[in-house]
């Protein structure tokens, strides 16, 4: 019950705690893309959709910027809950924007691409956020600054992946295999995000136990 009340109180403060300007920027650019795009083919609709997915990922990595991270590190509200609150705030923006994008561009696409492009967005988003959480664990208070260029670099990397491992493919015969890879990336990203969002003490204890069993060190609590 306390957690729910806390979440509600924190949600009211989210405008000051979370960097929302990039999300607003992404919203504006997405709007422009949607108004501007006049797809003649399904490919002409897919690329703007992919651009919107990248934009939303770019904007969402800034929600983890926390100038007061050091101060609030030992509060009773666990790290995963604080991270989840921030990601929840990002999703409140992302889900409707993506929904509207699908409504606008979806009619031009083969039906399966509604799912595929959503898997692509989820994969990019989760991997981008996992990378950002990793940067916060390394002590960065503004991980978005480094994470956003990394998202661009990562997107280019995905773009250049050659035939057998291509992910941003348009060839119908590769769709299923490519999106299986996207799904795997999504799963890996989710696992990494969950792992990185755990309390650092809990993580390092597990790491220590692993290292301890190798080095014969005594482990806390044993």
């Amino acid at each position, binding site marked *: 019950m306390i957690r729910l009340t806390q979440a509600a109180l924190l949600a009211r403060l989210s405008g000051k705690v979370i960097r929302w300007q990039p999300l607003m920027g992404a919203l504006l650019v997405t709007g422009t893309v949607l108004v501007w795009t006049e797809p003649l083919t399904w490919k002409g609709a897919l690329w703007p959709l992919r651009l919107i997915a990248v934009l939303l990922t770019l904007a969402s990595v800034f929600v983890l910027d926390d100038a007061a991270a050091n*101060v609030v590190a030992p*509060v009773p509200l666990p790290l995963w809950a604080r991270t989840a609150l921030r990601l929840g705030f990002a999703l409140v923006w992302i889900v409707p924007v993506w929904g509207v994008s699908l409504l606008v561009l979806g009619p031009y696409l083969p039906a399966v691409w509604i799912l595929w492009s959503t898997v692509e967005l989820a994969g990019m988003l989760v991997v981008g956020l996992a990378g950002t959480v990793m940067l916060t664990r390394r002590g960065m208070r503004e991980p978005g600054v480094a994470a956003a260029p990394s998202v661009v670099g990562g997107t280019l990397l995905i773009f250049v992946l050659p035939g057998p491992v291509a992910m941003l493919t348009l060839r119908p015969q590769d769709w299923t295999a490519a999106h299986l890879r996207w799904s795997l990336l999504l799963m890996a990203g989710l696992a990494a995000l969950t792992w990185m969002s755990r309390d650092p003490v809990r993580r390092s204890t597990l790491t*220590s136990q692993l290292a301890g069993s190798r080095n014969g060190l005594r482990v806390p609590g044993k």
Partner: protein
Amino acid sequence: MIDTVVLDDVTKTFGRHRALSGLTFTTGPGVTGLLGPNGAGKTTLIRLLATVLAADSGSVHLLGRDSVRDRLEIRRRLGYLPQDPGFQRGFTVFEFVDYVAILKEMVNRRARHDEVRRVIGEVGLTDVSGKRIRTLSGGMRRRVGIAQALLGEPELVLLDEPTAGLDPEQRLRFRDLISRIGENRTVLLSTHQTEDVAALCERIVVLRNGASVFSGTPEELRGLAHGQVWVSGERAGMLSWRTAEGMFRNIGSSPPDADLVSPTIEDGYLLLLGDVPSEVPA
């Protein structure tokens, strides 16, 4: 005395750097000062006690509980000021402390606001509680950090360099505040300010290379330099400086006819860390 902080053979390594190396010490209610040169492991120790870090080996018990297994219970009874606190600068002082209070599970609005006003008053920021943090001076921001650490009357208060950037008046006010808190609670104070330690602390732990090289009272630390501090008309000893009276205050092995003076905690600390040869085994 109940031991509220118990560390036994604690080791913490970052990559190849061993920040804490078999650290063992015990302390209880009252103010304990942590002294040590840069890189001695003070901040790592404070972060470990704040349950932000876990030890690689050894055990840490705080307020009678295991610091890893029972960290949530410990965090509910903990106040922490990090060495380099950051703030969302768009917040006013009140809003920021209120934000931390919510994170500390104070969900009742009226009680929380009363508590926020109390701690802001304790650090003398009532007049600026409506001002945005970005408009405050460095010292005032430090006081905001101290205020949030005092929320909820924590039983264990960890303060990393709390007086850095405070003006003399605020430092005295801070001493008053900490000594009052330390009357019935455990306060650990990591600092380079030996005057603060001398004025406030009942116990001192000196760290060097991640291990405790001294644990005792300020008087015992001062006693380490007994007979090794003297004044003379010329520079002598291994470390000396000219005083306002034009004499030289020397630390080290004193000559037989030396004009010995009463040592300070700083003298004991310097001798202990081996910056000057000590006749007292560390």
